[in-house]
């Protein structure tokens, strides 16, 4: 698989799953 495809995969995963992690942390902290 080309390097650029791996970069896109990592960046998209970081944005989506990182975002979910931050939102979940904020929700749990408030609780």
């Amino acid at each position, binding site marked *: *698989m080309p390097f650029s*495809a791996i970069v*896109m995969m990592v960046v*998209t995963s970081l944005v989506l799953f990182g975002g*979910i992690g931050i*939102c979940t942390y904020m*929700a749990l902290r408030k609780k």
Partner: protein
Amino acid sequence: MEKRDQWDSRFSFILAAIGSAIGLGNIWRFPYICYENGGGAFLVAWLVALFTAGIPLMILEFGLGHKMEGSASEAFRKVNRKFEWFGWVAILVGFFIVCYYAVIMSYCFSYVYHSLTLAWGDDPSGFFYQTNLGLTESPFEIGGIKGYILLGLFLSWIAIFFSIWKGVKTVGKVVYATVLIPWFLLLVFVIRGVTLPGAVEGLTFYLTPDFHKLLSHEVWLAAYTQVFFSLSIGFGIMIAYSSFLPRKTDIVNNAFLISLANCATSFLAGFAVFGALGYYAVKVGKPVAEVVASGPGLAFVTYPHIISNLPFWQPLFGVLFFLMLLTLGIDSAFSLAEAVAAGVRDKWKASHRISNTAVCSVAIIIGFIFTTGAGLLWLDILDNFMNKFGLSLVCLGECILIGWVFGSGKIKKYVNGLSEFRIGVWWDIFIRFLIPVILGVLILAELLERIGSPYGGYPRLAEFLGGWMMVLLLPVLGIILMILKRRE
């Protein structure tokens, strides 16, 4: 005054909203659109569209529903009595969609059964279109009603009816199964997909970026269209769901979490689909580009091919795949039905049993047309027009009525009063300027295309009856429902 229903917990609400947003499109639409529009480069446009249009609209719908404590029709009536019809239009778009969505679920029901014996044999295409659907040549060649599709339709509606039995009280419990099971199954298919020999070929197709495509406006329009279609905004679902939240809740965090979870599911689905497509392409000795497909063709033709070619446990993977589609679809379907039932309850103070029975009965009768030999053709026309015009016009109307007439500032102030992460002026700019412009371009582009040639090459009369007429019916029915006397 009777107390309004409320979610058992915030987690139930989040799961229900995620379940509504995640549907068949996440599996059979997103991966193909991504591949077709520049692969990895499309992901950039898609994420930009998510943060500039999807999430702002989600915040708008949550804020409106929660502030006004009503279904879409009730919420817009509280904004201004003259706008009630518009809320009904949003609900009706969802209602027409659930009429045929239940039929697609019926296909999944029948394929769970067919998977046990791999009934499609060597010809999944002929099996699906001829044996299973009895597909006719033209929309006007109706053909007979297919008995087992009708049976599947009844089963789908029974499942929907009981899922919304006591409104969000029941929905809040059912979603634990209908969200967590398909997520688990998707994970199984991702692992199975990427570990198949040849999977890398498929994933390379899915993710290799062609950054030049980002200069094309078509890629950006495809990205925004994907976001609008995928988040269950514009059907009144999110307005109704948020109206059942307790008074103290975090609107912005909910909107971000639900939108991101939906998109993460789409992104993961691409691995399952393209991993399997890569394996299949290598197995039959064709390039991935020749085996790639989307929509019902991917689920009911290409995937059965792949299942038959798996090295082991073909029937098990077949059953699990169609069970995944079924459970993915059902929570989208019952959220659409609940949005309509909530509108009926708010207007006529009907009980859950009466509103649910009325909604399910009318929808099942309309659904009969889609169980005939020409059903898939009518379904295709209605689906295109409800999404490309119905949904887009509702989202555009929401931006204009809330952004400009009611004032986006009022919703922003309300949402910020509840949320930890505050929205700023960027949100007003997206709601008042950016999203309406993009939606305007999308609607205009589709309008020009339809004037040039009928959708899908169907006869103009069929396009009018199944498409234009249904779109025109939306405001007419909306006004009639508004005029009908409400029960105080």
